[in-house]
């Protein structure tokens, strides 16, 4: 017996309490650490349970499984909840370095807790309407957090995200209702069984496409990606790291769970387009990253590109593809977060956003630049777990078709080229004797923790590869998750 709903309830309690305790600074910091500690403990207990049983299900409120609000967690889901918990803790630590003179920090804590609750809910729920509710909960709090610094450009980015998110949420809701009209149930498991039996139905194509638009906008899939570079470049760095590392990961997990695992890639014909859309996203993001000069905007476009690669792996449907996907997800969460946090430190220390003016940053801030380099290496497949994820990814692409391997390889090389452009400027000799401002210790602690986790993951590559093999078998055998969701 496990308690999956603690993963959603604890952040919601935290969101409420941080508003109540807004006046008392020490009490709110203590409360935040207690909630995060409780979250870590429940992730560990749930994780042990999932490793013992394969899939853990729970029905909130004592209803039989499959009737009420159901929750289910599988092996890949454990990776996701662990990444969300770890990255939210890092972003709290990073923010506390900046927040010494910030009176609105309780609002920040509350919104981050709401975001975490939405992400946990998206990972756990087994019916599509609650998936919709949690997607909207996390996107609304993300929108407000993007405009946290209250500059004019921040509001512009937040408004752009919000308008697009509203339109996509209407389409998502329409798709959910169309599915309900055909199937007569909102449970993902029942929908999966229906779609597997009734393949070739034009209405299932339409409704699945509408749901894909609803999930594709927060996941920033081409051509629904336009909000991401603006939002990520204007958001505070701690939020950009949380969105790039955790939020995108959860969106892709929801896509994998709903489309690859439950509905099945072969049962609805429109899902065969997924790998090509993913590769188009990857190529487009990599090409656009090459021409950027704002360092966080460049990182935003490389985030789009690596998300596209993940989508392509999710759509191929071979066991090697899913192994690559699992390794890619484990590797890219800390890599993306460390890239955004160290870029935020560079901007904070040098007070420029244009990376061409960051000459000589290596001599001023060697630690931060080293962390940026580690993030780049992990993200593009250098000597780290990223190497194995990229190797499995290329094997999976080439196995499927030569063209896919070509496009995937080309976009990886283009991402590498845009990282090299940045690193080359950072290590060049300083243009003037302009010293860097001092960086708060909390920021360095957050970056150091992420670098340590990348190094740890590198040394754990052998158990992680065998974990990826077990997980890919579980993803391919979608019927087990369906049975757990329906309650057989």
């Amino acid at each position: 017996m496990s308690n999956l709903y603690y993963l959603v309830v604890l952040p919601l309690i935290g969101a409420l309490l941080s508003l109540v305790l807004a006046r008392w600074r020490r009490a709110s910091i203590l409360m935040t650490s207690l909630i995060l500690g409780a979250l870590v403990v429940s992730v560990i207990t749930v994780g042990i349970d999932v490793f013992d049983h394969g899939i853990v299900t729970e029905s909130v409120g004592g209803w039989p499984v499959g009737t009420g609000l159901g929750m289910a967690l599988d092996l890949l889901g454990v990776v996701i909840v662990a990444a969300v918990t770890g990255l939210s803790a890092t972003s709290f630590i990073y923010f506390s370095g900046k927040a010494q003179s910030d009176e609105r920090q309780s609002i920040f804590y509350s919104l981050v807790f709401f975001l975490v609750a939405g992400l946990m809910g998206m990972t756990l729920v087994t019916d599509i309407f609650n998936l919709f509710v949690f997607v909207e909960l996390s996107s609304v709090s993300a929108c407000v957090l993007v405009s946290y610094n209250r500059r004019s450009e921040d509001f512009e980015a937040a408004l752009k995200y919000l308008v697009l998110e509203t339109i996509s949420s209407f389409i998502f809701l329409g798709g959910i209702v169309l599915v309900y009209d055909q199937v007569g149930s909102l449970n993902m498991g029942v929908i999966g069984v229906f779609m597997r039996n009734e393949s070739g139905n034009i209405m299932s194509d339409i409704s699945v496409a509408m749901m894909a638009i609803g999930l594709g906008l927060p996941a920033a899939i081409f051509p629904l990606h336009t909000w991401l570079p603006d939002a990520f470049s204007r958001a505070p760095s701690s939020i950009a790291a949380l969105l790039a590392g955790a939020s995108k990961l959860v969106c892709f997990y929801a896509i994998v769970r709903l489309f690859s695992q439950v509905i099945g890639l072969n049962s609805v014909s429109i899902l065969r387009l997924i790998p090509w859309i993913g590769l188009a996203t990857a190529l487009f993001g990599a090409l656009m990253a090459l021409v950027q000069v704002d360092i966080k905007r460049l990182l935003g476009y490389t985030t789009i590109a690596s998300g596209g690669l993940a989508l392509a792996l999710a759509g191929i449907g071979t066991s090697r593809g899913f192994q690559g996907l699992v390794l890619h997800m484990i590797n890219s969460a800390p890599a993306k977060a460390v890239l955004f946090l160290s870029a935020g430190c560079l901007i904070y220390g040098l007070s420029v956003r244009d990376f061409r003016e960051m000459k000589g940053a290596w001599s001023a801030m060697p630690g931060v630049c080293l962390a940026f380099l580690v993030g780049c290496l992990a993200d593009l497949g250098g000597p780290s777990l990223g190497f194995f994820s990229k190797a499995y990814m290329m094997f999976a692409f080439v196995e499927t078709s030569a063209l896919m391997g070509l496009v995937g390889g080309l976009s990886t090389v283009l991402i590498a080229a845009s990282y090299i452009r940045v690193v080359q400027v950072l290590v060049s000799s300083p243009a003037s004797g302009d010293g860097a401002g001092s960086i708060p210790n909390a920021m360095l602690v957050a970056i150091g923790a992420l670098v340590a986790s990348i190094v740890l993951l590198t040394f754990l590559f052998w158990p992680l590869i065998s974990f990826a093999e077990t997980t890919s078998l579980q993803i391919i055998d979608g019927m087990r998750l369906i049975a757990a969701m329906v309650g057989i």
Partner: protein
Amino acid sequence: MSIDLGIVAYNLSFLLMLLGIYCALSHSDIIKVVCGLSISSYGVTLFVIQIGYTQSGSTLASGAVVPSVDPLMEALVLTAVVIETGFMMLMLAIGIRIFQEEGHMDLSLLRRLRG
């Protein structure tokens, strides 16, 4: 020749949703964008309500079987309406902040973030 009124009503609510989205995308004033999006949200809500209508539905109310529509869709509409209202309010709030910062609410003049 008979026309299925149910199909016509589905298509009309979809048309309302598309009209709202067109209105939101073709105007550059933030208030008009919000108006368009709320028209679009009415279209979606209407669609959800229509799906909930059944000819021969019945439910147990206070011990007796009475004719009824699908109660699940009513719950969905309630939740969806609250979420949509939250979106509209947040959009208007951001619009007010943009007006305070810039002195106008014209999206076509907000072009700092490009490329």
